[in-house]
């Protein structure tokens, strides 16, 4: 049996650039390899400056790669045909909606940029507005929308060409919980429709909830990858005990990490460890999550 062709394949992908105004050459992406399988939601995670957005830009052909190969649908990402481009859409990190147009004109023009006829768009634009709960705002200008509405419109705009492959660059950053939940539902529905999604986010609960596969990158390199469950299992075990200092003596020797006011203990068997803790100890017991993995892999030092 042959393996089906992946939606995206990167090998030794590199991006270096000279900062404007001089200074040493910056290596934003240092030779990364990854594969995004068709019909999956893959998360590209990492701290600020890890190289996520640069990778996204290279995928979209918005910046030139410096080395390695990057294929989409089996063809070089930098030289996709018009037809292949119509199968891809991007939800960028910043909303770049057109402030000179109304909400529905934004979708109309964007659809036509993909070569979709006006007749088709006359039906599709109201559908998308309804899907993203923006129908009442159809004739509003973009700057009359709230942050959450803008984000929904940006996501709706990326659906106007009914893409097979969708890049979501921090789709829920800065949104209230209601809007995030609504956008998660939409993303899960897109996954059900068989679309391939590549997602970046700083919200680990979001990544854990939406992604089948996670690629952790930092300083332009892949740190590790796998399903959320695999990564949690591998790096932090199943349970976390956040024990406030002073730490009781004679605890079993398990994987632990000092985080200042408390120590995190990562353990496989929660019940056994709990019995070892003295009754007067102050602690918080919770299941391990992607946030633990993220912080363990990328460290706790602040980034700029």
């Amino acid at each position, binding site marked *: 049996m042959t393996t089906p062709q992946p939606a995206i394949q990167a090998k030794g992908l590199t991006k270096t650039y000279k900062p404007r105004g001089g200074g040493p050459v910056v290596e934003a992406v240092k030779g990364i390899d990854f594969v995004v399988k068709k019909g999956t939601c893959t998360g590209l995670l990492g701290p600020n400056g890890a190289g996520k957005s640069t990778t996204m830009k290279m995928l979209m052909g918005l*910046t030139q790669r410096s080395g390695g190969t990057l294929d989409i649908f089996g063809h070089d990402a930098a030289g996709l045909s018009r037809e292949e481009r119509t199968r891809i859409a991007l939800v960028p990190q910043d909303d*770049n909606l057109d402030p000179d*147009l109304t909400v529905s004109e934004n979708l109309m*023009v964007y659809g036509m940029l993909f070569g979709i006829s006006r007749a088709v768009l006359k039906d599709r634009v109201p559908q998308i507005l309804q899907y993203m709960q923006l129908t009442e705002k159809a004739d509003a200008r973009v700057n009359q929308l709230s942050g959450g509405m803008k984000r929904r419109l940006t996501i709706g705009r990326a659906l106007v060409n009914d893409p097979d492959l969708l890049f979501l660059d921090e789709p829920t950053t800065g949104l209230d919980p209601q809007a995030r939940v609504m956008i998660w539902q939409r993303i899960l529905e897109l996954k059900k429709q068989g679309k391939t999604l590549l997602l970046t986010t700083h919200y680990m609960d979001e990544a854990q909830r939406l992604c089948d596969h996670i690629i952790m990158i930092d300083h332009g390199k892949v740190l590790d990858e796998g399903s959320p469950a695999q990564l949690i299992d591998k790096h932090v075990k199943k349970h976390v005990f956040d024990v406030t200092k002073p730490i009781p003596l004679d605890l079993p020797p398990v994987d632990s990490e000092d985080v200042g006011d408390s120590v995190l203990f990562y353990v496989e068997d929660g019940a056994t460890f709990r019995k070892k803790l003295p009754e007067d100890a102050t602690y918080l017991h919770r299941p391990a999550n992607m946030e633990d993995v993220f912080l363990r892999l990328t460290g706790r030092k602040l980034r700029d």
Partner: protein
Amino acid sequence: MTSVIYLRDFFANIRPILLRFGYEYRTVWKAQIVRDLIDRLLYLFAFGFGMGALVTSMDGMPYLTFLVPGIAASTGVFVMTMAMTYGVWERSTSYKLYPAWLATPVRLPQILMAELLYATLRTLPSILILFLLAGFVLGAIPSFWGAVLALPVLMLANLAFGAIAMCFTVHIYRPLHFAYVNTLWATPMFLFSGVFFDLSQAPAPLYWFSQALPLTHVISLVRPLLTGQELTALQVVTDLGVLLTLFIGGYAYACWRFQKRLLD
């Protein structure tokens, strides 16, 4: 075959961006025409009637008649320069519309061509109103058909002015610096291209300087057309050649540099 597909895609991709400008124009057209026209009319009235009272004839014609073609030709200098500096900056960098459009099948040369075409079309109503006013109200356009012929010449000229302004834009990283394009390029060209005085009577250095300015080559076509002066075939070929070269050359350079700037 590849080039046929390229051309087909090229025009297919320009259309939606022009439509986008059409949507925008629907809401701003009145303000746009007033803005584009009003300072031209101020120059026309101030110099036409002020200077015109002192200078009774210039190059063998009434001063107002001499002035109208130059004022009409200079409309595009300012409209196109504004649109291709501040306007392009706004859409490409502050609104980030270019990155949004480039995430679709549209490519940069198509965006820049749509910018040029729209801005050029936008100058048409202003120039028409100027012609109607100067011709029918002030009686300062002797040749009606000459004025009709001048319109396509002015459109080509405006494409060239736009392409040149774009070449400045690709090298400017702070919108503050766009003011230099006006003060060091558009305004001197307006003053030294024979809008206000007969270049053939000007001192030799000034004459040669004026020949290096694109606006001179527009006026040397448009003034004979509007006033019925003689126009030689050589003159037509030279001036149109200059304008066409500037348009294509400027556009190609702007595409190349802008691509580098956006993609690096």
